[in-house]
């Protein structure tokens, strides 16, 4: 406490500074944040709208307001500093500070509102619509948070606090200009493991495996609603707008009464709803009309607008249909969005269905298309280089590869056996030493000597399974052996910085030359395996190709990869930002934003 008081005194002395772009952490919360009070002058305000009391490690009550953004709003920082100066205060413990707090809260604090984006189908374009709206609102100076109550996805991301959410919400929070996503934005994450079983993550922490029936008959009725309520409430307290995304179609009438992802969530959040329909497959008018009319009449009034998405060719040809649609359902079409050619991480492996190759670069990199492939957004940054990604399901497909990636999977042992039975493992053995091979997460575990899951934590198999033996390590699955963390460190060989995140159940030791040195509070840890002679790489770190350091290092081993030295390298994050801007302007040009704002302001 004394330390904070001292810091605040310094801040008062310094006066109002606005955004501090010189700070190496800027922006640590959101774009254009006010940095005048890096330490809050009102701490601890003990106001439940801004924080809560938690028990410290020693069991003492402490006030936690780490997710509070209020003091970083520019108008708030300015007002508070002006008042402090006007009243001539120097000490944050001065009782008059409480008056300033009351005043600034009354003047600037308002609980946020929500908007829900439904899709008539999966892949309607809900996620990108949320991304676009998040960015458009951020550009207008609002604080915005994305939200999806329940996301079924094998692509996830680890937050700075070490909690886990779906990749789509992480990207949406980036679109909103937020530095860090958090688990309130996706409180329920389901990772399908096959046979109607999913691994359930609740508020960022592993909850356990559930069958579809257990989930819908027990979990959802018992706690689904409360989870949605408290997380929506959390976000509304801190952001101006919560832009919610539905799941699948909101008109699945066989499960309508148990839904907490679509109308269920919209009602909790009192959110007006927009229905997005993808025009690509045809039948979209029928989908739109049917969706609206199948929703029970008392809920239908929540739907305030329609967006026709992904129009190829001349949008004006759709306009007559759109006008007809408005007449039939009495809901305005607020946007006719053309197909926007952008590249953003995809949500689930459906996106890979039927796809044999992506990109058209010279380096042919084969990716083993494991049945339960997970976190394959890892691959996206490679497409910034002269690379073609080929998805391999048969040993013959490996012919002509310049490198191989064994990606992550939700079920390592089952997928290893799948590779073995198909003859892919043997084909890789033949390629070992000839071209670089990298395993990421599950793929890395497969490359080890042995995989042991005596308690069937990952699957049903309990006898140890022989690994590919490319590395000497063993992976063990024990109760509580799951690891989730966001990491920063260096690539040992070059000393360059790397970032990546881990999320896995089995644990293995490093028995080779390590790839990375990871910074931890307790000191540096080694991570990954590297056999230079045989060009074998293994790591638990997802997202490891995002920064150019390791991406270029790995590709330098690939035939033709050395030529990259002469080309400019692009950071994946910059590339994402460009794509998000392009997406947002595509929506802004083709959507009636004033009408959208009117719908949002008016609410229900």
């Amino acid at each position, binding site marked *: 406490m004394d330390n904070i008081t001292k810091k605040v005194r310094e801040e008062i002395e310094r006066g109002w500074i606005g955004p501090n772009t010189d700070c190496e952490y800027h922006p640590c919360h959101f774009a254009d944040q006010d940095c005048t009070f890096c330490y809050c002058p009102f701490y601890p305000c003990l106001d439940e709208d801004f924080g809560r009391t938690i028990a410290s490690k020693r069991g003492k009550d402490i006030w936690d307001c780490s997710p509070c953004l209020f003091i970083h709003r520019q108008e708030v920082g300015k007002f508070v500093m002006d008042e402090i100066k006007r009243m001539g205060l120097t000490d944050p413990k001065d009782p008059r500070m409480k008056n300033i707090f009351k005043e600034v809260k009354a003047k600037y604090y308002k609980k946020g509102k929500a908007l829900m984006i439904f899709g008539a189908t999966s892949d309607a374009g809900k996620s990108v619509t949320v991304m676009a709206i998040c960015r458009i609102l951020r550009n207008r100076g609002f604080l915005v948070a994305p939200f999806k109550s329940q996301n079924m996805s094998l692509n996830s991301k680890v937050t700075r606090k070490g909690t886990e959410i779906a990749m789509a919400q992480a990207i949406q929070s980036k679109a909103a200009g937020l530095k860090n996503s958090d688990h309130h934005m996706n409180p329920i994450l389901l990772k399908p493991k096959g046979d109607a079983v999913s691994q359930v993550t609740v508020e960022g922490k592993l909850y356990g495996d559930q069958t579809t029936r257990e989930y819908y008959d027990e979990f959802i009725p018992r706690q689904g609603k409360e989870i949605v309520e408290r997380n929506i409430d959390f976000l509304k307290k801190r952001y101006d707008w919560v832009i919610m995304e539905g799941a699948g179609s909101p008109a699945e009438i066989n499960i309508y009464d148990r839904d907490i992802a679509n109308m269920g969530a919209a009602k909790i959040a009192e959110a007006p709803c927009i229905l997005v329909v993808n025009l690509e497959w045809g039948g979209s008018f029928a989908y739109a009309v049917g*969706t609206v009319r199948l929703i029970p009449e008392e809920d239908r009034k929540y739907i305030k607008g329609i967006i026709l998405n992904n129009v190829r060719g001349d949008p004006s040809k759709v306009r007559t249909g759109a006008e007809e649609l408005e007449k039939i359902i009495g809901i305005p079409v607020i946007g006719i969005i053309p197909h926007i050619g952008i590249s953003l991480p995809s949500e689930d492996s459906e996106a890979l269905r039927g796809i044999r190759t992506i990109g058209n670069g010279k380096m042919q990199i084969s990716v083993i298309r494991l049945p339960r492939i997970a976190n394959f957004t890892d691959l996206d940054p490679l497409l910034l280089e002269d690379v073609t990604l080929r998805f391999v399901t048969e040993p013959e497909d490996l012919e002509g590869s310049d490198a191989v990636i064994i990606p992550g999977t939700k079920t390592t042992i089952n997928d290893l056996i799948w590779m073995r039975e198909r003859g892919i493992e043997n084909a890789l053995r033949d390629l070992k030493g000839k071209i670089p091979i990298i395993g990421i997460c599950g793929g890395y575990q497969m490359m080890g000597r042995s995989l042991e899951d005596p308690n069937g934590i990952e699957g049903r198999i309990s006898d140890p399974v022989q690994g590919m033996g490319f590395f000497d390590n063993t992976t063990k699955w024990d109760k509580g052996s799951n690891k989730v963390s966001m990491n920063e460190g260096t690539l040992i060989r070059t000393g360059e910085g790397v970032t990546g995140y881990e999320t896995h159940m089995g644990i293995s030791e490093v028995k080779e030359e390590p790839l990375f040195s990871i910074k931890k509070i307790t000191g540096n840890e080694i991570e990954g395996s590297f056999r230079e002679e045989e060009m074998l790489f293994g790591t638990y770190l997802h997202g490891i190709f995002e920064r150019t350091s390791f991406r270029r290092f790995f590709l330098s081993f690939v035939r033709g990869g050395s030529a990259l030295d002469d080309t400019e390298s692009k950071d994946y994050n910059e590339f994402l930002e460009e794509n998000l801007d392009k997406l947002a302007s595509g929506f802004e040009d083709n959507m009636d934003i004033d009408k959208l704002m009117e719908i949002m302001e008016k609410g229900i």
Partner: protein
Amino acid sequence: MKIIFLGTSSGAGKTTIVAMYCRYLRKKGIDVVPFKASNLSNNSFCTDSGKEIGVGQAIQAWASDKEPETDMNPILLKPLDGAVRVFLNGDMVANETGDTPADRRSLSEEAYKAFDRLCEKHQAVVCEGSGSPTELNIMDRDIANIGIMRKKNVPAVLVGDIERGGVFAAIYGTWLLMPEDIRPLLKGFMINRFRGDPSLLKPATDRISELTGMEYLGTMPYADIRFPEEDSTANDEKGFRDPMVKEAFLKDLDEFLEHAEKALDLEAVERISDSSA
């Protein structure tokens, strides 16, 4: 005996379902042929007499133990570089651009004549619709869906694809948007590509029947049936001429039919096929 299978979207699985139903009737000893009034595709099949028709009708002909012929797909539209090449009865008759639209009315008359010829010669004609029948912006010009139904009084079954979700909305919406004079011809609906236990869908299928009066005909489990066109490289003529290709396709189709016989009420589909008589 005549029937048309309509999809709630493109890719709903109409082509396979029509092939399967042709196969089913054929195995019962019925003289059956497939028909699709108009096809929009760059993939074509070249008949023995050197005429072009859609690939879908060619493989549906195989399923019916028939040689593919032009009456099965009288109009073929091949989009190319912003223009559309129009084929009528297997021959190119026009290159349609924005400035020079083809005469759709006379085209449609020709298509209906082809349909009549098939009806005269065969016991059963199984039609495939095109895309969705209820595209509000082009419905008035439709030939392959509403056009043929209205003109030839063809009873219809809706096929909805559940894979992307929203299938009940798609079926109900399609029914709602059908012109009122044709709506009574919508007799039944089925759901395609479901992964899971179909009994979970019962409350929804019951509700759709109640709302529309259409009969629920069953739910097909997801099946990965591959068409020759998907296996051969772009319009590889040899691919279709190879007897192995036909054999492999029919083997897959027979397996699909076995699933269909369990999952769908095909007798009810037959009743619908007869219902216009």
